[in-house]
C-alpha cells in the first residue's frame, strides 16, 4: 500500500521512539501536521520555534532520549537556529524536522523560502534536504542514528511540501550504513594501559569531568573510580551532577567562577584526567598556564576535541563509560593522604561563600535556599549570566541530568523552555528554572505553553534589574561605565505571570524567601513565577581574570581555619 511522505515521516518518528514533538505549524509543514493528527502523535504547540528547539533540548538533557522539534519553512526554520546551535554545542541529541517550499520552487526566492540546509549547516552535526520521497524513511533513520550516537548532536531534516504529499511504497529502512561515520567506542588498549599506569603512579591526581560523562552514562563508574583511587573530582558547569556535589571528594566547579580550591587543585596536580570535558576557555583560562606540571589524560568520544586547545599526553578516544570500566578493573593505588590534606587546607582557607549583609536580599542566599529546600534533587534549568554561575556554585547537584544549561553557546532564553521540555518528560523530580530578569525576556512567551498544559514548573527570577553579568564586566574591566546593561523598563513579572494564568509571587525580603519557594514547590498544576528582587550590584566571586591562569583569582574569601 502506498503512503504519503508525511505519513511515512510520522511512522518513522514513532519507530524511533519519539513520544512528543515540539513545534509550530505553517503552510510548508501542514501535511505533516495532518498526518500527526491522524496518527495521534503528541504535539506541543510552542509560541516561538526557538522555544520549541530548547524544549526538545531540555527534554533530551533530562531523559537522555532524542528530542524532536518542528518548524515550517523560511522564518519558522530560521527561528530554530539558536536552539539547534545550543543543543549541538552541548552535544545534546535533537532532531529538527522542517517544511520546505515545493522542490521545484527551491532557489526561486519563493514565499517563505530560506536555504535552511545552508543556514543550519554550521550549527548542526549533520543535516539533510530530502528531495525524493523514496529517500525519506532511510534519511530519518540515519538522522536519529547520527543524533544519538558518537558525540551526540543536532540533526535537521528539511522536507519540501511536495515530498510530504508524494506517495510511495513504505519500505522499512535498511540498517544504517554511513561509510564516513563510525564513532569509535572502545578506547585503544595500549593507551588505556599507559593511562592506568600513570594514574597508579600519580601523587596529586585530579579528575576533571565534563558533560560527556553524563551523556555516556558513566556516572556510577566515575564514582567508583574516584572512591577506589581516592581522587578528588572537579566538574565543569556541564559536568555538574556527574559526581555527587556533597561527596567528600567533590571540589565542585572549576574555571572562571569555580572555587579557589578546585582551581588550586587542578593547577597543582601532577595528573589531570579529563573525562568527557573539552578544555573550554572558560575552564582553562590562558591555555599555556593550565595545570602546568600535570601529565594530561583525555578521554573523549570525539577525536577532534583532543589537543584542540591544550596539548594532551595520553589521549584516549572512545566511550567514556567503556574506558572507565577498564580503569576500575586495574586501579591500584594508595590513599594520597598528603594531597587530600593539602586540598582540605585550601578548602578551609578559601571557602566558597558569600558575604551576608544585613537586610539585603542576596541572590546566593536565594539559590542556597532553593538547593536546601529541594534537597539537591530538583531538575534545574538555568539561563545565562550571574545567576547561572551562582547556581553552579551554590546549588548542590546530587545526580546527573539535573542541571540543564547552555554551557557551550551560552544562550539567554534557554532556561524556561528547557524546563518546560523536561517537565513534559514526566519525571518524578520537581522541575525548576532559575533565570535572570534579562534572560527570561528572551523566551517569556512560553509562559503560555506551560500554563496551557498545567505544567508545575517553578520559575525563580533572580531580578537584579540588570544584565548582571555584563554589568559586572563593565564594573571590573570597563571603568564602571554602565552601558546598555541597566534593565529599567522591566515589567512586574509576577503580574505578567498572572496575565498568562500562572501564579505570580513577588519577594523583596529574605524572610519571605522560604514561603515563596515552598508555595512554588507545593503547586502541582501550574507554572509558578517568583520574582526575587535582589541586591542589584552583587558580583559573582571568585573570578579568574580573563586571559590569566585559573588559580589567579579575584574576590576569593580568605579564612584561616
Amino acid at each position: 500500500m502506498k503512503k504519503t511522505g508525511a505519513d511515512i515521516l510520522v511512522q518513522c518518528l514513532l519507530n524511533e521512539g519519539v513520544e512528543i514533538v515540539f513545534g509550530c505549524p505553517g503552510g510548508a509543514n501542514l501535511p505533516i501536521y495532518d498526518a500527526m493528527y491522524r496518527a495521534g502523535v503528541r504535539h506541543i504547540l510552542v509560541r516561538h520555534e526557538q522555544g520549541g528547539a530548547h524544549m526538545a533540548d531540555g527534554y533530551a538533557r533530562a531523559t537522555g532520549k532524542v528530542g524532536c522539534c518542528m518548524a515550517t519553512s523560511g522564518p519558522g526554520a530560521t527561528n530554530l537556529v539558536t536552539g539547534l546551535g545550543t543543543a549541538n554545542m552541548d552535544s545534546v541529541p535533537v532532531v529538527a524536522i522542517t517544511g520546505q517550499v515545493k522542490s521545484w520552487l527551491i532557489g526561486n526566492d519563493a514565499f517563505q523560502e530560506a536555504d535552511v540546509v545552508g543556514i543550519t549547516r554550521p550549527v548542526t552535526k549533520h543535516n539533510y534536504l530530502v528531495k525524493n520521497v523514496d529517500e525519506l524513511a532511510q534519511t530519518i533513520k540515519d538522522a536519529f542514528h547520527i543524533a544519538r550516537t558518537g558525540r551526540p548532536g543536532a540533526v535537521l531534516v528539511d522536507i519540501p511540501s511536495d515530498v510530504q504529499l508524494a506517495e510511495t511504497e513504505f519500505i522499512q529502512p535498511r540498517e544504517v550504513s554511513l561509510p564516513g561515520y563510525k564513532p569509535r567506542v572502545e578506547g585503544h588498549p595500549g593507551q588505556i594501559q599507559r593511562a592506568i599506569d600513570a594514574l597508579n603512579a600519580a601523587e596529586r591526581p585530579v579528575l576533571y569531568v565534563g558533560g560527556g560523562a553524563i551523556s555516556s552514562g558513566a556516572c556510577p563508574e566515575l564514582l567508583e573510580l574516584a572512591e577506589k583511587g581516592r581522587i578528588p573530582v572537579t566538574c565543569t558547569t556541564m559536568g555538574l551532577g556527574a559526581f555527587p556535589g556533597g561527596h567528600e571528594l567533590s571540589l565542585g566547579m572549576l574555571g572562571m567562577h569555580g572555587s579557589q580550591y578546585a582551581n588550586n587543585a587542578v593547577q597543582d596536580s601532577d595528573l589531570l584526567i579529563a573525562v568527557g570535558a573539552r578544555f573550554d576557555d572558560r575552564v582553562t583560562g590562558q591555555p599555556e598556564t593550565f595545570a602546568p606540571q600535570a601529565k594530561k589524560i583525555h578521554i573523549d568520544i570525539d577525536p577532534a576535541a583532543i589537543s584542540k586547545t591544550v596539548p594532551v599526553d595520553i589521549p584516549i578516544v572512545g566511550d567514556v563509560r567503556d574506558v572507565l570500566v577498564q580503569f576500575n578493573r586495574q586501579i591500584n593505588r594508595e590513599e594520597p593522604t598528603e594531597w587530600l590534606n593539602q586540598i582540605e587546607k585550601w578548602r578551609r582557607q578559601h571557602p566558597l561563600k558569600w558575604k551576608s549583609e544585613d537586610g539585603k536580599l542576596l541572590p546566593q542566599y536565594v539559590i542556597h535556599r532553593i538547593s536546601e529546600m529541594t534537597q539537591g534533587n530538583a531538575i534545574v534549568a538555568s539561563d545565562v549570566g550571574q545567576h547561572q554561575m551562582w547556581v553552579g556554585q551554590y546549588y548542590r547537584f546530587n545526580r546527573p541530568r539535573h542541571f540543564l544549561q547552555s554551557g557551550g553557546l551560552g544562550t539567554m532564553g534557554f532556561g524556561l523552555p528547557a524546563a518546560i521540555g523536561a517537565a513534559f518528560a514526566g519525571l518524578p523530580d520537581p522541575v525548576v528554572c532559575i533565570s535572570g530578569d534579562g534572560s527570561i525576556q528572551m523566551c517569556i512567551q512560553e509562559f503560555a505553553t506551560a500554563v496551557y498544559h498545567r505544567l508545575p514548573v517553578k520559575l525563580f527570577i533572580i531580578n537584579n534589574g540588570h544584565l548582571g553579568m555584563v554589568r559586572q564586566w563593565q564594573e571590573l574591566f570597563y571603568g564602571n561605565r554602565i552601558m546598555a546593561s541597566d534593565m529599567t523598563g522591566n515589567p512586574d513579572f509576577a503580574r505578567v505571570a498572572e496575565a498568562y494564568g500562572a501564579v505570580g509571587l513577588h519577594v523583596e525580603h529574605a524572610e519571605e524567601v522560604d514561603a515563596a519557594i515552598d508555595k512554588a514547590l507545593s503547586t502541582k498544576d501550574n507554572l509558578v513565577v517568583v520574582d526575587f528582587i535582589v541586591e542589584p550590584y552583587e558580583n559573582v566571586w571568585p573570578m579568574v581574570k580573563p586571559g590569566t591562569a585559573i588559580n589567579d583569582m579575584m574576590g576569593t574569601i580568605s579564612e584561616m581555619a
Partner: protein
Amino acid sequence: MIGRHTVGVLVANRFGVLARVSGLFSARGFNIASLAVGETEDPSVSRMTIVVEADGPTLEQVKKQLNRLIDVIKVQELTSDGMVDRELIMIKVSISPETRTEILQIAEIFRAKVVDINQKSFIIEATGDENKIVALVELLRPFGIKEVVRTGRIAVSRGPKTIA
C-alpha cells in the same frame, strides 16, 4: 611552523558536500590554498585534494575536523616525497609575429601544448607540479598574459597503497 600541506579526502558524492567542506574551513579559520574535486572510479564517491596552509597542530585539527563530517569517508595526508601531484593550467598569452616562435619554444621546453590560436593570442595548456607551473607563468608574463585558469593541485600517493 606554517607550511603547505596536501590532504586527500574521499567524500560521499552528495548534494552540498563541497559546501560542507569549504564551510568547515571558513568557519574554523583554516586557510585553503587550493581545493580540487572530481568523481572517482566509484560514482558515489568523490575525491578532493586540498592544499592547506597550517602549522602542525592546526593541520591535525584540519584532519580531525574533516573526519568529523558525516559525508567524509577518509582523510589522508600526502607528503611531498610520497605523492605525485599535478596541476593543469591554461594561459592565454598575447602574440605578435615577432614573439610567436619564442613562445612556441618556451611551450615546447615545458612540454606544454598550444590548444587554440588566432591572430593575437595563443592558449597554452600545461600540466605539472606547482614549481613548473609557476616557472612557465613567469616566463610568459613578459609577453602579456591575458588570462590564466588553474585547477589547483591534485595528488595521489605513490606505490600500491590507496586512500580507500
